[in-house]
């Protein structure tokens, strides 16, 4: 279908983009890769009055080394993330999860910032940056501010971004070589959304799990950390039995959705099983 009528601007600096967006009010939307927004426009589910295309803002593109963290520009495409040497070295989890996003065509156009700002609970990246304890950088008319990943996702498709604010980058703390990771995604077809996804990070020392972080995809209206699992796994022996045991609490406090792909109970079961697998793989057992 053809989208409803809208105005379109393609600013050449972040400042221009912010003022264009702020001028557009509540009905203005930012478009980067357009892989989530365009389907909404074409299905006529969204009727923005103004699209601010940040595709021309090269300052938001690419990955830079910031010492103890990596700064990933918001319009860095999934393809770039998957193939970036810095990301591969310091946060492989992000590259692994991004490699499962949709299909190659989408990964070439879709951006990490767009994916996060869209905040689809079935999207893979929100749970991953939650597990990575990343910080999101937003620029608005009042200036720049940082939002922690845990506070960024407010509700279904809703983020802490104010109208008029643009997500410009993601700051991901570098992880050392003692960290193992795994993104387990369960879906029926290769390019589908996750029915349930689990992002696990495990730091091992002396055959034990020193620290574990688990982010869950599509187990509620926002991505969540499986706090019960993290507590149970911390300090435990790095073995299949103990990790599976720890994973049994993965569904605690979740409110998974019900749809054609599965009932809430099914999703809770998936979360427990996938968390077990992800922890095992991340701990290397």
């Amino acid at each position: 279908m053809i989208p409803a009528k809208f105005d379109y601007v393609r600013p050449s600096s972040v400042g221009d983009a912010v003022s264009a967006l702020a001028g557009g009010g509540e009905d203005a939307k930012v478009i980067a890769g357009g892989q989530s927004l365009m389907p909404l426009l074409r299905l006529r589910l969204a009727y923005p009055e103004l699209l601010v295309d940040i595709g021309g803002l090269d300052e938001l593109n690419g990955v830079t080394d910031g010492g103890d963290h990596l700064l990933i520009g918001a319009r860095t495409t999934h393809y770039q993330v998957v193939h970036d040497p810095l990301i591969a070295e310091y946060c492989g989890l992000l590259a692994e999860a991004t490699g499962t996003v949709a299909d190659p065509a989408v990964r070439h156009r879709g951006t990490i910032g767009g994916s996060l700002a869209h905040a689809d609970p079935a999207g893979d990246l929100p749970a991953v940056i939650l597990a990575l304890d990343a910080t999101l950088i937003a620029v608005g008319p009042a200036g720049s501010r940082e939002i922690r990943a845990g506070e960024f996702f407010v509700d279904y498709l809703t983020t802490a971004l104010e109208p008029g604010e643009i997500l410009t980058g993601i700051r991901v703390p570098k992880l050392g070589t003692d960290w193992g990771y795994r993104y387990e995604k369960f879906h029926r077809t290769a390019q589908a959304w996750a029915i349930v996804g689990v992002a696990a990070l495990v730091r091992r020392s002396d055959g034990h799990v020193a620290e574990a972080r688990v982010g869950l995809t599509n187990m509620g209206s926002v991505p969540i950390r499986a706090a019960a699992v993290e507590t149970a796994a911390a300090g435990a022996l790095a073995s299949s039995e103990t990790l599976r045991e720890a994973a049994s609490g993965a569904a605690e406090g979740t409110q998974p959705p019900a749809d054609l792909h599965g009932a809430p109970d099914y999703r809770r079961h998936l979360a427990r099983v996938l968390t077990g697998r992800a922890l095992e793989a991340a701990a290397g057992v």
Partner: protein
Amino acid sequence: MELEHSFSVPVPAERAWDVLLDVERVAPCMPGATLDSVEGDSIAGRIKVKVGPISMTYAGTAKFTERDRDAGVVTLEASGKETRGAGTASASVRSQLTPEGDHTMVTVHTTLNVTGKPAQFGRGVMTEVGGKLIGIFANNLAAMLAAEPAAEAGISEEEELPGGNVVALSDTTSDEALPIDVLNLSSRAWSSLRQDGIQTLGDLTRRTDQQLLAIDGVGRASLADIKAKLADRGLALAAAEAPGPAEAPGLSETTAPVTPEAASAEEAVQPAEAGEPTADLNGAAASAAGRHAAAEAAADEDLAEVTPIRPARHETPPAAQVPVQREPSGWQPPDNDAIDLLDVAGLPVLKRAAPAAAALIAVLLVIFGLRRRRARRG
């Protein structure tokens, strides 16, 4: 999808019953709802649902199908159509009041059906969203019913009043007791305010601009939104010099000293903003503005006044107005869609049929002639 919500309110069932049947008071409890008209049992209105970038407006009607005062049961059936699409939504809301001493237990049972694109999109999310909306509705209803005795007692019986509230009572009391949900703020602003302990409109009006801006998560845009929506209800934020007496302690350190000029500037801005929401009526949520407009419309029953803001009205308007209202919105299927064939193709068909008809007449004449000849002979 079936949903069950229950809550207890500190009013006797009798009073809760009266409130529950007062559509103009119940409707604003539904986030994004606007009343267009109320005529007897049937209610016309719209509800705007906004989920991130997705926004949908359903227009339709609701009707009380069951009102059993003795059993304390009231059922409202509502159905609507998307104004910009082909989707539909329908809900049957059955509320049961059970007296428990001087409290009342309210159980709301909802059957919700959503069809069309929004229902297909997003893996069943619309029902989740619908469930959430009804949850907020139930909360607002509970808050409104709970605020009820204070508001009514203020006018009639003073002994029921909790101490200290007397001063605050005025004709806007019922509005001030409403939860901030009725403003239909963005969920970010809403949750930020809630986290700061702001529950009702009254709490909000005791804060100043600066105090609100100091809350993490409330920016200029949210502030302007809040002020506009408050102005709709005849409320305003506190003037900058006078921090709220009750709510202030937690905030005192964030309240930067405000210069008199800044304060008066803020005051000067407010009247200007008060004018804005009327323009909102066409599309944006503006539930409050809609409520006032609808109340007026219901009062003088002048439907013509309301129609401009109802582009996709599907219930039949009074007969006399039908032609005027149907014309403008592009092509509409005519009432009887069977085409009168003779009108369209009568002449060409006649032309083609002419030779055949002539031949037939000729044959008949011949036969007629032959028979007469025979008759003469015989």
